[in-house]
């Protein structure tokens, strides 16, 4: 296969994943939340159980007026949604779907790349929060920055533990060396990574920066139209990214009960959707954390657990 064709197929595949997976997760959120709350959720768009609801939402957003507040810092305000979305798209590039190079772009340090790029998303929150020239937006942006700065540390430490265990920073390499008993050995890191990941994408119960009831919608308050639609889209891609990273790092990625070689992609997708389901479940189950509870959880629980896990990983690694 010529290089350009391979490249086109790979990038095309990632773009397709980028366009479909978040919508599936978003639709699942609508339906799962509704059923957990004894409702039906969207039922009309697309006739069958409202499957086209998010597409209809998208059409609605496109038709709306794109307003930039007069007092806002125009270029920064308009650029922020893009900065929020692009990092997640880049992360999807390096997440392996199956064995034998079934990945957008295999990187030797894929794990590092993913964490670095996810971290850039903070800049977008600060940009949108500040440039809106709105005190609720600014408060939301500051809350988000304080939260993301704190939670990045346990996220990276937990990921470092599994990288130590596998002896590689390549995401495919980590899945290859993964064995089922790691579920037990890396269980604390799994918990820390998952919680910190949910906080990193600001999903409930860590949605203090958005806090609809006290801040309007945090840093998104002033956005309208298509730009406003980009933020929830980025949030859904964020769910997919965190679920996929959890899957690849801690749940064995494409390793399944049988047929890893040809069914690997299916196992990965099943695990990604299972983890996404749990993230949605959390939103329905837990109330929002207060700022002090948020920081306490991060610095007094997650960071020490992650550090202890690092020691445990090193000890087991040396003993073996």
């Amino acid at each position: 296969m010529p290089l350009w064709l391979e490249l086109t197929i790979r990038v095309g595949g990632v773009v397709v994943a980028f366009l479909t997976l978040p919508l599936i997760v978003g639709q699942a959120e609508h339906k799962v939340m509704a059923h957990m709350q004894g409702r039906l959720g969207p039922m009309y768009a697309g006739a069958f159980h409202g499957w086209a609801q998010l597409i209809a939402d998208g059409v609605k957003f496109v038709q709306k007026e794109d307003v930039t507040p007069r007092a806002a810092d125009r270029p920064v305000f308009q650029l922020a949604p893009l900065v929020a979305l692009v990092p997640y798209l880049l992360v999807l590039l390096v997440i392996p779907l199956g064995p034998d190079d079934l990945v957008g772009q295999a990187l030797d340090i894929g794990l590092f790349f993913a964490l670095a790029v996810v971290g850039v998303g903070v800049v977008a929150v600060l940009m949108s929060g500040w440039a809106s020239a709105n005190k609720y937006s600014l408060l939301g942006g500051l809350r988000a920055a304080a939260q993301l700065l704190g939670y990045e540390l346990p996220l990276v430490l937990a990921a470092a533990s599994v990288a130590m265990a596998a002896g590689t920073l390549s995401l495919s390499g980590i899945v290859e060396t993964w064995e089922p008993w790691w579920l037990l050995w890396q269980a604390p890191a799994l918990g820390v990574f998952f919680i910190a990941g949910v906080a990193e994408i600001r999903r409930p119960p860590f949605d203090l920066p958005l806090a609809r009831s006290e801040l309007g919608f945090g840093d998104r308050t002033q956005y309208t139209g298509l730009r406003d639609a980009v933020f929830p889209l980025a949030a859904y891609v964020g769910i997919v990214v965190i679920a996929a990273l959890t899957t690849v790092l801690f749940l064995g990625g494409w390793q399944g009960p049988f047929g890893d070689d040809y069914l690997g992609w299916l196992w990965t997708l099943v695990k990604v959707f299972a983890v996404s389901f749990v993230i949605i479940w959390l939103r329905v189950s837990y109330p929002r954390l207060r700022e002090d509870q948020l920081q306490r959880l991060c610095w007094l629980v997650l960071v020490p657990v992650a550090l202890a896990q690092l020691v445990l990983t090193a000890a087991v690694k040396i003993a073996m």
Partner: protein
Amino acid sequence: MTAADVLLLGLGAVAVGSGLLVVTTKHLVRAGLYLVVCLGAVAGLYLVLTAELVAWVQVLIYVGAVVVLLLFAVMLTRAPIGASDDLDRPGWPALLVGGGAGLGLAALLIDAFRWTKVDLPEAGTAERLGTEIFRSWVLPFEVLSVLLLAALVGAIIVSRPDIGTAGKGADR
């Protein structure tokens, strides 16, 4: 000129240009955002030079943490939208020091290398970097960690003035 040359020149121009904007713009927060662009371009330079780990460390630490902390602090204290006209700190000492250091380094490097061609070393993978740091460069690495520890302790002392005074009161 190869593709790598073009990329190096382009990224270098972006880095220098955005760096200039950082110090010349009157918009406080935008200066921080230009810094993101500048550091990102430097990370791109590392990538072109095949030092991929250093490049992504640059993004993770500088863009993801240092600049964000800086922006956070600026927004927390004073961050008007639009130009701040009261930034009256004289620019010439910084110009002197910065320009002098930049020109001096440039002259030194140009004089040292002229047109000699330097082959790219092996790619800066995580593995190679790890072996180098933990074999040849262990001592500087450990000394640096002591420096960081001192900075941490210093930060705690500065942010909590009650520590020192309470101790003194009890001693005397």
